[in-house]
């Protein structure tokens, strides 16, 4: 009997029923652990998470969490999150009500045989080359999560690609 294949997890795209929670929190030690711990112990799934100081205040940070609304009812997630004392405000953004952006960085080998295909892919995605090495380039795409998904999918055909995404940030649509 051959040993089982190592389980690498399913390739996950954004869940069909996802919501974006824009969470204003006190900028205090351990706040991220409180949020992550809450999601873990209640069995809520986080798809992506981004944290940065909010506006110009050092006192607050904004955490943008894309939650899988299939893992638990959104009402439960928001209700439990709101009980964390360090959570100041929660804005629930349904995908259609939000402007979402994400940043993707990828380092791509530029071998002789794939060079033109690779450059073509980069150009078509609208990605910018931000670093150049002797045999590889690093490209950046700042765009919608769907655009990042598309570029990631297009790069799947190439080998030795190192790819990193930030997770999305979002704000409410104005109209």
């Amino acid at each position: 009997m051959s040993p089982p294949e190592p389980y690498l997890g399913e390739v996950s795209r954004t869940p069909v029923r996802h919501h974006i929670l824009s969470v204003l929190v006190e900028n205090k030690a351990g706040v991220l652990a409180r949020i992550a711990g809450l999601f873990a112990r209640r069995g809520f799934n986080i798809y992506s998470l981004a944290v940065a100081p909010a506006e110009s205040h050092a006192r607050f940070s904004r955490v943008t969490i894309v939650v899988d609304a299939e893992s638990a009812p959104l009402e439960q997630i928001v209700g439990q999150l709101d009980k964390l004392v360090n959570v100041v405000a929660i804005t629930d953004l349904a995908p259609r009500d939000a402007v979402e952006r994400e940043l993707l960085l990828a380092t791509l080998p530029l071998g002789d045989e794939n060079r033109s295909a690779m450059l073509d892919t980069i150009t078509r995605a609208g990605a910018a080359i931000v670093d150049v090495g002797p045999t590889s380039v690093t490209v950046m795409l700042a765009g919608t999560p769907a655009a990042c998904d598309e570029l990631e999918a297009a790069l799947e055909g190439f080998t030795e690609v190192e790819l990193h995404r930030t997770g999305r940030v979002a704000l409410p649509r104005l109209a």
Partner: protein
Amino acid sequence: MQLTGAQALIRSLEQEGVDTIFGLPGGAILPVYDPLLDSSIRHILVRHEQGAGHMAEGYALATGRPGVAMVTSGPGATNIVTPIGNAHMDSTPLVVITGQVATASIGTDAFQECDITGITMGITKHNFLVQSAQEIPRAVAAAFHLATTGRPGPVLIDVPKDVTQSMMDWWYPASVEEYDLPGYRPEVPLDEDAIARAVALINESERPVLYVGGGTLKSRAAQELRAFAERTGIPVVTTLMARGAFPDSHDLHLGMPGMHGMYTAVTAIQKSDLLISLGARFDDRVTGKIPAFAAGAKVIHVDIDRAEFNKVRHADVAIQSNVGAALTAFDDARATPRNLDVWWKTINEWRDQYPLVYDEPSAEGPLRPQHVIEAIAAKAAPGTIVAAGVGQHQMWASQHWKFEEPGTWINSGGAGTMGFGVPAAIGAKVGRPDRTVWCIDGDGCFQMTAQELTTARSEGIPIKVAILNNAYLGMVRQWQEMFYDERYSEVYLSADLPDYVKWAEAMGCVGLRARTLKEMHEVIDEANSINDVPVVIDFRTDAEEKVFPMVAAGASNDDIIVHPLQRGGNQ
């Protein structure tokens, strides 16, 4: 005025009106124990930190005021994790102070270091690691505010040793605004629209039930509940956490619902067309199989914690409020169900058919545990407080004791913490020295925390402990008998090992034993005559006695198993 952090901590506790701390000193908390000598606050020196936590819980449940415990870092802190978790499950207001290694040593695996704020993150309402002596007053004031408002719960303050040793300029927050809790809004305005929809549901209901949970006690709404129930005639059930919120002697009271609830309480919920949930959370021990729980009922869910809404059961109307305010709003709107005569006729038939029963005790013993509880209750002073551990004895105590007022039933509901009874009873007696306090305990539970009787004796806290000694981990034994083909696995404890009378005596208590009915009455009388030292009674009870009624785990409440005496035919 310059104070050390330690002095500021004690002074802050005094500012919050703390009269008692349950605790045990050690290295990291040492600085705080020095100014304690000069304080008016009474310190109860426990023998194990778990005891301190449960005592603080017993104190809080008996008085309605937050319980305070103080322990050292590392193992001192981890030993109090169980009470913190217990208080979290039962929404009991606690403030727990833990010593911590000096700030410069945090993260270095220093002696007796542990990340207690990390460990208790999921089982506290909130916790603080205090970074400077100047911040101590704010942390203490905020901790008491958090512990006692909204949905109450445990709050932990971790204080590094260098913080308590350094100097600060004394101050104390004058108002909530200075607590620095921008994200904490415990109360929201009453939703008038939701009230109106709830009133409409009540007005059209024909088979309503008031499903009263622990939140009714936490919000001190027993009077509003009684007024509403009496005006409307709606039957009342009180959950394990709400015993005492409505008098057991009241004709509208059907008793406790749930896995070991009264047949009538369980069945009335099942057949109801409207459940008015007041500070209850649809716990699995109440609902049984969730899809089968009160399947024909609409639900009005009143809770201060909005995360309880639709967590387990869909709420047709959710009202985020304390229980008293919602009931007053229902009353103001003259919410009144339809004529309930038919409903009450049905309920009273269940009551007649399925009262609480148990087998006749024989004069020579073994004693019937239910009978022992009723005998103690019959001879107890009015207002007696009862604490319990967890297991069969707890269920029998809840079933057979008649609770008439809030704060008289002290037990571990959500967490089911064995060993809760003795220290909780001690804490209750400290908080209510005017009351008689009985601990109804099991032999398994008693062995977990009995060392605190030494604390009780040395501190002059004369509680009375009734061990219903059936020589088994009785509830587990019951499940093995009923659901595991009588294959008894690791449940036998022996009735004679330890010798409970000698053990009690070794701890400075009076130890008594009863095997026969005559002895049972004698020892209860003797215990009642002793009011200066703790008394422990070893009641030898029948190991085969089981708690009925019973709804098997995961079963529908419709499939409630009644006592064998009530089973017709071949059930």
